[in-house]
């Protein structure tokens, strides 16, 4: 075959290939993190495939690489994802950089009302700018940081007696953060069933967002504020207030008194492993793990109890997790992607979503009579969702997150400097970011 004939054949093959590719446009890719709820969504989506005739493909990335992978995809203008269930903090950047499709007109046209969803999830997962009716996602997975505890250990008479004698109150679900620390310290290094156990598995991870998602549960409850409520981006005296310093000191004290040895870089999966293997009495983690804990043969069922993040001196709050589902602006199947959102927003699909292992943010699902009794953790979930606060969701959120990871980790884990110095340093870092962004 002459070279020219060969080139012609190659070109023809390419054209035929392209044709075949566009002929299979009736498929869509949904991107999310690789975790149990994602598997549930695969099952749930079979209903959509049957109804629409669109083949659903899925790209699930493990949590530690999820943000890197997906933000690279969005920022490079990639076309991998038609739909993306992205983290709540990405919403500002994705909206302002044109990565997500604004859904207001679509919601109005299809009769999808944000009033049907838990308000905190609408603010957290869908709105940008925050507090304005501009929607870039549909709340998809409601999540929040909460606690699990070894009820079977807590109920042991000898431990109850010893605890009461030491602390003067009953061993049980803590009424406040100080009690939580007492309990963690009580179990630290204790011998139970011939095995040494420890107080708590806390979020301490350094590399991505772990310790920030953990420490905020103490900071919020001691009075930390992200900014002056009356003057946006005015953070001096709010981020590093005396109350915020006390909150940071508390988290360090909790880590020092009750964290499992070697837990200096733990996040979701390490905490799950520590709890399921019977190493710790308490576990801080997002609520998505609760169905798995409940079903676990070692610690599930009656052996575990669940509670919302306990209050501190300044109130009771918990770190918001969870995500909304967005249409990626680069999709070549806009119609199909919007059809998926419309299908997913139906009340019966949302109910099924929760049944299959998801966590609906739809009020008709979570406020339904009997919801609280369906699972042992549902009450704790509802209590937690009522007290959520979230980290910055600005386009520069990563530039705000990374110094917080560094400052907090240096103080809490490495024990470098004081809490005041850590938060003063954080203020300086954040002010620099705001100035770079032209926000001040």
């Amino acid at each position, binding site marked *: 075959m002459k070279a020219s004939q060969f080139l012609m054949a190659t070109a023809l093959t390419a054209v035929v290939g392209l044709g075949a590719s566009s002929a299979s446009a009736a498929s869509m890719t949904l991107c999310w993190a690789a975790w149990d709820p994602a598997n549930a969504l695969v099952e749930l989506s079979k209903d959509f495939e049957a109804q629409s005739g669109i083949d659903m493909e899925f790209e699930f990335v493990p949590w530690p690489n999820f*943000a890197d992978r997906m933000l690279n995809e969005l920022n490079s203008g990639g076309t991998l994802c038609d739909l993306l269930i992205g983290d709540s903090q990405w919403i500002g950047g994705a909206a302002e*950089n044109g990565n997500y499709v604004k859904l207001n007109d679509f919601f109005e046209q299809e009769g999808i009302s944000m009033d049907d969803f838990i308000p905190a999830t609408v603010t957290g997962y869908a709105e940008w700018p925050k507090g304005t009716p501009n929607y870039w996602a549909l709340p998809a997975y409601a999540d929040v940081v909460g606690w699990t505890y070894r009820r079977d250990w807590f109920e042991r008479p000898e431990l109850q007696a010893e605890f009461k004698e030491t602390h003067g109150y009953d061993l049980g679900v803590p009424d406040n953060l100080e009690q939580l620390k007492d309990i963690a310290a009580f179990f630290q290094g204790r011998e139970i069933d011939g095995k040494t156990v420890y107080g708590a598995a806390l979020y301490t*991870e*350094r590399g991505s967002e772990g310790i920030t998602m953990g420490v905020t549960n103490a900071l919020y409850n001691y009075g930390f504020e992200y900014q002056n409520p009356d003057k946006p981006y005015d953070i001096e005296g709010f981020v590093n207030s005396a109350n915020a310093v006390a909150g940071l000191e508390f988290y360090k004290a909790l880590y020092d008194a009750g964290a499992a040895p*070697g837990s*200096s*870089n733990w996040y979701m999966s390490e905490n799950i492993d520590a709890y399921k293997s019977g190493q710790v009495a308490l576990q801080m983690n997002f609520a998505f793990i609760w169905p798995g804990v409940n079903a676990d043969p070692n610690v599930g069922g009656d052996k575990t109890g669940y509670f919302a993040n306990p209050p501190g001196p300044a109130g009771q709050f918990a770190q918001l997790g969870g995500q909304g589902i967005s249409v990626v602006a680069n999709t070549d199947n806009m119609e199909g992607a919007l059809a998926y959102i419309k299908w997913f927003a139906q009340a019966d699909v949302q109910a099924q979503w929760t049944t299959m292992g998801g966590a609906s943010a739809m009020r008709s699902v979570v406020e339904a009579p009997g919801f609280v009794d369906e699972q042992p953790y549902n009450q704790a979930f509802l209590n937690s969702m009522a007290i959520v606060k979230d980290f910055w969701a600005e386009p520069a959120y990563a530039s705000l997150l990374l110094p917080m990871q*560094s400052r907090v980790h*240096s103080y809490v884990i*490495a024990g470098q400097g004081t809490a005041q110095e850590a938060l003063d340093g954080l203020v300086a870092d954040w002010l620099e970011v705001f100035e770079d962004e032209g926000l001040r």
Partner: protein
Amino acid sequence: MSGNPIDRIAQATPPSLANRFRGFSDRTIAWLFVGPSIILLLAVNIFPLIWTINLSFTNFKANRLRDAEYIGFRNYERILTDADTWQSMQATAHFLFWTIFFQVLIGFALAYLINKKFKGNDLWTTIIVFPMMLSPAVVGNFWTFLYQPQIGLFNYVVSFFSGVDPSSFSMIGDVDLAPWSIVIVDTWMWTPFVMLICLAGLRSIPDSIYEAAECDRASKWRQFWTLTVPMVLPFLMLAVLFRGIENFKMFDLVVQLTGGGPGSLTTLTSIDLKREAFEKWRTGYASAYAVILFVTVFGLASIYVKALNKVKER
């Protein structure tokens, strides 16, 4: 047909190809062969370098729609006056110095031992070389388990020999131990590489030299210092160069092991750079950072290569 191989090749060359090149000078033909490589090099190395230098003078952010503005040397000024940057430089220097020190020391000692003829020599070489066959990410991951205070083998071994409670110390969580934890793992993984290079050096020394030294009644100690070490030195220096360049770029192993913590104590420059470029998306700033690192490595490597050449000439 001539029996000369060159004539046979000339005759076997298709006439069309020969005709095509007929009339070209040797220089033109040389350029035709070298040209594609040079174009590729320009496209994938030189152009990105020039583009990076250009970006380093801007406030460009690759994830933003807005245009970049030229800000002069502002990025360089901020990087060089940033305490965090210097901390990561210090962490990198500590990591580089001690990994190279231990790898050269242990690698040379192992090579010296393996070079002796004994039964099972090949088997031991294979076993020793095994760690460098693993992926650094995998190594980082499983060493987190080895360093686990409650279940980790490393803590258990230390406890066994020292009597210290294994759960009383955390290699990756302790401020004093964490910088050493990454040195230990890198040394474990890459000492075999240094050993192999040293072994090549040792095996390149002719036996006749040692025989001559024996005739001159030189002691083993003197043979080692006046023959073995000088003759292996160029190989050792090459190993140091390779390991230095590799460890300056170290990323995956440390990220898996410590995530840069505790605090920022093991945040090496490559980790810091990656966070600036692909997490904060400060492309201009990260470009300036990359240029500074490039100049540093290039400068040090140039000085080192000159020293290496001098040693070879001796």
